[in-house]
Every structure is written in structure tokens, then in C-alpha cells.
């Protein structure tokens, strides 16, 4: 029999959820296919968790449908979730279980062959850096440690689709960075990752595409690049840091650099430059910056463009 190869997919059709008179999610239409990471971005209360719960049949839609890998979760949650890993609302694991036992249970119920279980479990525990805790009871773990086990549980069966609801909540800064690294790593192994977050930088850091949601409404869904260019009319910004405080006269010299359309002092030693001209313009600008001999230490693409779009988009309804 030829091997069937289909791309992983997540789809919502007019997905709507009301709690009483309040509409938490309003007519969400999303079709995501392929192997990539999609950030599901929105402020607190936007409807991200609601969407993910609908996608996993934890709650039921008022209207519309949700499909994972082409299977409606309403009609057959078992088949729909068969090839998905799900992390929603930082679940609790039975406190008397150890990570090894909890993951064994997940692997068993999911149908991971017994011969492969031990190795899979060891691998995913390694990925979340919990190997040395493998045989301790989860009940005594900190919030962040539990979250790592939860992340490991989504990976035991090596799923094609991952639904992650703010996976880095409850983790310390190093933990957050590690989770981001894990997610970035997961992308390499041909998966579709749908990750909610209210932190823009997190989405920018690990995702290829972004769906922005606010007050239950999808504002846009596009690649990060397209979003940036679409909303910044050809402008981009760089943040430059210098070894010593800039003189007032330096501002004029910076403003005169090729392509620069505006500058803004972030602090005495840092300045944000808005410029035009795409990648070529950026190259010429950096060459120009170096040529000024102002003690340039570093240049970084500022996130301000997206940040501005984010804030501007989610405040439009006010």
C-alpha cells in the first residue's frame, strides 16, 4: 500500500461560542495547513483559550465547527485528536504519579507501542530538562516543573499537530526561553504548531505566521513578514546602541543617513531609526552608522513595528 502523506491541518468554520449573552468567540474562520508555527496572538480575554478548547472538544460551539487533520472534533474527538498534542490551561497531573508514570499512561492510552515507550518518554523528559525528576511525585512539583511535564506529555507520541495554550506561562525567564527553544526545535520535525500567546515578542521569536484575535474576532492571519510590510507602508526600524551618550549634534548626522525617515532617542546611548528601502536600505544604513564613528556597539531590528501594529489593532475597537 502506498504511504499516505497528507499535510497536517487545523481548521475552524464560523466557529462561535457564547457564554450566556456574552460572545467569547465570534465567527472564527481559519484554515491552517502545512508544517509551520502559527502564533495565536491576542490580549487577555481575547478568546484564545476558548478557541483552543473548542478545537479539542473540551467545550462545544454555539455555532460552527472545528477540525483537526480534517476530522471534526465534534463528530469524532478521538480520531481528531489522535495525531495531535494538546496543552490547554496548565492541567494538573494526578499528584501521586511520577513523570514517568504520567507519561507512560499518556503513551499507553495513545497507542505508543510498549517497546518504544521507555525511549520516547526519556527523550521528551530530556527535551524539557526534567530527566532527574522522572521518578519523583508530581504532587510536589512547582508550577513550572508541572508545566514542563505537561509539555512533555504533548510530545510523547510525536504528533503532527500541536495545540499549545500559552505554553510558557508559569515558567521563569530561563524556562520561558527554554520553551521557546523547544518550540523552535519542534518546527524542524515537520509539525504544525498552533501556539497562543499574549506576548508579541514570543510569537515573533518562534512563529512564522500570526493570527491576531481581539474580543472574539479575528483581525488578521498572515505571515509575520507580510504583516510587518502591510501595516508599516514600507518602513522598518533598527535600534542602535552606542558606547557613549550621543551629543545633540549627532542626531542630525543620524537623520541624514541614507534612507532614514525618522529617529527617536530611546535613552542617551540608544536610538531607534525608521528607514525605507528594505534589505538593501538596511545594509546601507548599517554601513552608514559604522562610518559615523560614534562608538556603535550593536544594531538590532526593533520590534516596534509589530508592537505598534499589535497595539494599534487591538485598541481600534475602544
Amino acid at each position: 500500500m502506498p504511504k499516505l502523506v497528507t499535510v497536517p491541518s487545523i481548521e475552524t468554520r464560523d466557529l462561535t461560542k457564547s457564554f450566556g449573552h456574552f460572545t467569547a468567540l465570534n465567527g472564527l474562520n481559519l484554515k491552517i495547513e502545512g508544517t509551520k508555527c502559527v502564533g495565536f496572538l491576542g490580549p487577555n480575554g481575547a478568546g484564545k483559550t476558548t478557541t483552543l478548547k473548542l478545537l479539542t472538544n473540551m467545550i462545544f460551539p454555539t455555532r460552527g465547527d472545528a477540525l483537526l487533520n480534517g476530522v471534526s472534533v465534534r463528530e469524532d474527538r478521538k480520531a481528531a485528536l489522535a495525531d495531535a498534542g494538546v496543552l490547554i490551561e496548565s492541567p494538573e497531573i494526578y499528584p501521586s504519579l511520577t513523570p514517568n508514570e504520567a507519561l507512560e499512561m499518556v503513551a499507553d492510552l495513545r497507542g505508543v507501542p510498549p517497546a518504544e515507550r521507555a525511549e520516547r518518554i526519556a527523550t521528551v523528559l530530556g527535551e524539557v530538562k526534567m530527566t532527574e525528576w522522572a521518578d519523583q511525585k508530581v504532587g510536589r512539583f512547582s508550577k513550572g516543573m508541572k508545566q514542563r511535564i505537561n509539555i512533555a506529555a504533548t510530545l510523547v507520541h510525536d504528533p503532527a499537530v500541536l495545540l499549545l495554550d500559552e505554553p510558557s506561562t508559569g515558567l521563569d525567564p530561563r524556562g520561558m526561553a527554554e520553551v521557546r527553544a523547544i518550540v523552535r526545535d519542534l518546527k524542524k520535525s515537520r509539525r504544525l504548531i498552533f501556539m497562543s500567546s499574549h506576548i508579541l515578542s514570543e510569537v515573533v521569536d518562534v512563529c512564522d505566521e500570526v493570527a491576531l484575535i481581539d474580543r472574539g474576532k479575528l483581525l488578521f492571519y498572515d505571515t509575520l513578514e507580510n504583516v510587518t510590510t502591510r501595516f508599516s507602508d514600507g518602513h522598518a526600524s533598527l535600534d542602535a546602541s552606542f558606547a557613549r551618550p550621543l551629543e545633540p549634534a549627532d542626531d542630525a548626522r543620524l537623520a541624514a543617513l541614507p534612507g532614514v525617515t525618522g529617529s527617536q532617542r530611546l535613552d542617551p546611548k540608544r536610538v531607534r531609526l525608521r528607514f525605507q528601502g528594505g534589505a538593501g536600505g538596511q545594509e546601507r544604513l548599517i554601513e552608514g552608522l559604522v562610518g559615523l564613528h560614534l562608538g556603535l556597539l550593536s544594531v538590532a531590528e526593533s520590534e516596534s513595528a509589530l508592537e505598534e501594529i499589535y497595539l494599534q489593532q487591538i485598541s481600534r475597537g475602544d
Partner: protein
Amino acid sequence: MGAVVDGAAGRLRVPVSSEQVFKLTRYQLREYLRSRRFVALIAIIAVIGAILTALVAHFRGGLVSSNVAFYGSFWGGGIDLVIVLAAVFFGGDAIAGEFQNKTGYFLMGLPIRRTTVYVGKFIAAYLAAAATMLVFLAILLANGAYYFGTGAVPWQLLLSLALALVYLGAVLGATFFFSSLFKTSAYGFVLTAILFLFGFTILQDVIVGLVKIEPWMVISYAESTIGNVFGSGVNWGIFGTKTTTTTMIGRMMVQSTTWTPGIAEGFVIMLGYLIGTAAVGLLLFEREEFT
């Protein structure tokens, strides 16, 4: 058909639901047997057993006049309390706890039907509760051996045990029903305990005294068959018997009516409760949202 993606998905087969029920039952049962709750319940049963042992040793008399009388009063006197406690201990938060403690989010992320979760948890709670019944049975048999020797176990005990196992299912069914009706564990605990420890008995008295019909719809009525099988002149049938006694209190003539269920009747009623409560509880859980 689910899409198959190259990599893991192609080779993974999610077990069929019946197999998942079996697996889940095993994990849940292990959870129960390891719990502090299980130890506490065994301790409570040991205390109940010790009290009964002391009572029998102290009063002897009619209690040990025959092996049937002994087994009837010891087993019949303690097992219904043991059953209600066990059901409440293991079933009270079986469903509500999944919501309250957020462990449900862990299970519900798996490719598993809600029915599978419900049935698996029910069977596990049933087995754990039945295991604690065995502890009480062991205390009984030890006492019986002391008074009558090991060979003198009456056949009625086996029948009574069978009825008790059906009763356990009925109480557990109700416990699971309350547990899915309220997402708060405490309600399930309290309601089941109140209802089965005295609520139904009061209701039964009210029905007999005021409505003056056979209280077949009340489970405490059916439950009395567990002890009744040890009696003499047992009604094995499917219909209850009505006894009217007239007593003189002073110069007043007071008539009182008692109903005794047939053994088959009691069995059918308890089975009905088991099936009814389990089914309605399952329907509730199917519609429950993990908000």
C-alpha cells in the same frame, strides 16, 4: 478518516475504546489503591468490624444462637454502611474532581471518548470499593470461624454478597451522577451520604405511613434484602409482602403496616437504580464543558 502524516502518525494506532476503558481502569485503580483515602477507609472498616466484634462477644445470646443468625446480624448490620462509605470515598469526586482539580484537562487532551473516561472511572471506583468490602468480609469470616468453625459459613452469605455487590453499583451510580451534576466534589459527598445513610429510609417510612403503598421505588427498601436473606420464611419473589399488625397502646388500637421486599424484587430494583443513575450520569458528563 484521520489524515496520516509522515513521521509518527502513520504507525500509531490509538487503541479501540474498549481497550482504553481497560487501560484507564487500571491506572485509576492504581491511583485509588495508593491513595490515603483507601488507607483511611480500611481503617474505618476495621473500626466498624471491631465494634461489631465487641458487641457480639459481649452480648452473645441470640446473636450467636446459630450460624445463620450470627452472619445475618454481623454482615447485615455493617455492610450497608461499608458500601455507602466506600462509594462516597471513591465515587464522590471521581467526576467533579476532574473539573475541580483541573486534572480533566490532562485527560481531555487525549484521543479518548468521554464515555471511556466515565466508564473507566466507574469500574475502577467499583473495584476499589469492592476491595474494601472484602476487608469487612474477612473480619466477618474470622469472627464466624471463632464461634462456629471454618466450615459453618451459611449459603445465604453468598447470595447476600451478590445483592450487596449490586447495591454497591447502585450507590456508586448515584454518587457518579451527583459528581457529574455538580462540578464541586463536596456536594456529591454530602448528598450521597445523606441520601443513602438516612434520607431514603425516611422517605420509605413516609411512603408507607402516608401514601400507604409498597415503597418499591425507594432503594433503601430494596437494600433490606441484603439482610433479609438470612431470615426464615424468606420471600424470594418479585412482589413484596404486606404485614399489618395491630397493637394496643393503652386503650388505643394502633395498626401498623410493614412491607418486605421479595429477594428477586430487591435485586431488580437495585439493578434498576444502578443502570438508571449510571446512564443519566453518563449523559450529563457527555454534555459537560471543561470551561
